[in-house]
């Protein structure tokens, strides 16, 4: 309160406060570091996209190859995200509502994809489904294409986004305990009804939070998808891959125009994430773990 005169000199509210000069210096270092390393790249994306005006940037986004990349990215996310939501809910239900042997081992297996390089995440599917992979010749005989086609891209994306939902829901549902579900079941509710009416309302914000992060990664994944896509223009290029193709072709306006779409997706994700963390902090496990 500024109205009450402080007994300690201004700037030294308590003996554990840093010297004002130290404080200002540290704030300047932080703001400077974040400006140079994080803000400058963000500004560069939009500045380069608009280097020759808004019309040219729009034109680049509306090219047929660019539009097909947008479409493919949306399709891939629309398959990979629901798959991981289904897995995340199932795994969290089994792990948080029951006691069984090997539970913590299972939990640590779920984290594996986060410690695997994106390139290796793509490589493993090439080793299984690629032409010289385990099932390569069998798939060729059956005329099924997985690598350099949509299924491979979906698989690689699913792998890199695999832990997001489970990782958020397991601690959240473990914290919430089993009492409410047990009460519902003992009152005669069926399993599905218990899940839909009791569990789902309790986890909805945590689930939304996880879906948000999962989706951002699914739409933006580059390394893993790059390995399995084959870079066929207009066919197997997702938005990040199309950015690479245009950039390597020296079509900088086009590359940065698509990149700015992805950057906007990232900014929207960050805003929604901050809103959820601020509004529903108690109902999101990741906020407590952070």
């Amino acid at each position, binding site marked *: 309160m500024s109205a009450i005169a402080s007994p300690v000199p201004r700037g030294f509210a308590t003996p554990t406060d840093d010297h004002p000069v130290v404080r200002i210096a540290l704030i300047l270092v932080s703001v400077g570091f974040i400006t140079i390393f994080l803000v400058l790249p963000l500004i560069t994306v939009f500045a380069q996209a608009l280097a020759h005006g808004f019309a040219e940037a729009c034109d680049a986004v509306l090219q047929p190859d660019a539009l097909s990349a947008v479409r493919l990215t949306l399709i891939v996310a629309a398959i990979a995200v629901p798959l991981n939501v289904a897995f995340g809910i199932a795994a969290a239900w089994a792990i948080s509502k029951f006691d069984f042997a090997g539970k913590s081992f299972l939990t640590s297996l779920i984290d594996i994809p986060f410690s695997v390089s994106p390139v*290796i995440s793509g490589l493993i599917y090439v080793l299984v489904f690629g032409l010289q992979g385990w099932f390569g010749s069998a798939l060729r005989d059956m005329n099924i294409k997985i690598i350099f086609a949509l299924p491979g891209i979906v698989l690689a994306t699913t*792998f890199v986004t695999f832990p997001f939902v489970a990782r958020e829901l397991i601690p959240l549902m473990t914290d919430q305990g089993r009492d409410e579900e047990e009460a519902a079941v003992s009152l005669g509710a069926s399993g599905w009804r218990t899940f839909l009416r009791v569990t789902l309302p309790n986890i909805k914000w945590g689930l939304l939070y996880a879906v948000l992060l999962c989706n951002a990664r699914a739409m933006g994944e580059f390394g893993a998808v790059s390995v399995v896509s084959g870079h066929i223009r207009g066919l197997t290029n997702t938005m990040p891959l199309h950015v690479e193709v245009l950039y390597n072709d020296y079509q900088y306006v086009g590359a940065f125009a698509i990149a700015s779409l992805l950057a906007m997706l990232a900014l929207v994700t960050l805003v929604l994430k901050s809103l959820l963390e601020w509004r529903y902090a108690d109902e999101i496990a990741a906020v407590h773990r952070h």
Partner: protein
Amino acid sequence: MSSAAVPRIVRWRNPSVLPGFGLSLGFSLFYLSAIVLIPLSALVLRPLSLGWAGFFAEVSTPRVVHALELSFGAAAIAAAINTVFGLIVAWVLVRYKFPFRRLIDALVDLPFALPTAVAGIALATIYAPNGWLGSLFARIGIKTAYSPLGVVLALTFIGLPFVVRTLQPVLAELGRDAEEAAATLGAHRGQTFRRVVLPALAPALITGSALAFARAVGEYGSVIFIAGNLPMVSEIAPLLIVIKLEEYDYAGAAAIGVVMLAISFTIVLLLNIFQAWVQSRR
């Protein structure tokens, strides 16, 4: 606790009134195996076709060794940079109030949210010889983009949130009692920080740096545009995997992948042991 009257039954799970155990665990295990475990086993099994001698010959060529050294070396330097600046950023965000604090706090997550290819082309443009910062460095004779330094810059971008986000909650819960005690005992601020605050933060600082390091080792998208990818100079290990795959050298690609995976898993394992050790000392 076991009582003599009740016969002990060894069960692999405790009974529960809740339904859906078989379905949820069954689906989880099936999905985990199909998406993660079986494909990963292909990575481990593939280099076996080379034999031990072939495997070592594959991963000890100068080009592969240099790429691995660059990936791990640059990741270590970037993690060290992030340890210092991550500590400062986390300290400022938790302890001080200043304009736009919330905005800066939200921005820290940008490397998590921004697709790596987007970060990659942006960094390459900034640090190119004619770029905003690259031209400044070029004037004093330092080559940033298309050199190992460019790799370090990209990996620093990727790693910052790991250190900050690991430190923030620990710092927030740290409380000021110990610092107040140190101050009343006559320690000045610098001593208090070195002798009281830093030891309390050390476990989180080490964890955050290790996470940033592990992520940076495998990073691909944000690096390849700025690195220039000259073999034996600025070529990272993940890129070499991609090159081997393009040459249909599956076993060679898998061999590099196995080495990277083995080192990454060792780091994660050591980190878990370290965290358990820290917990047990509390």
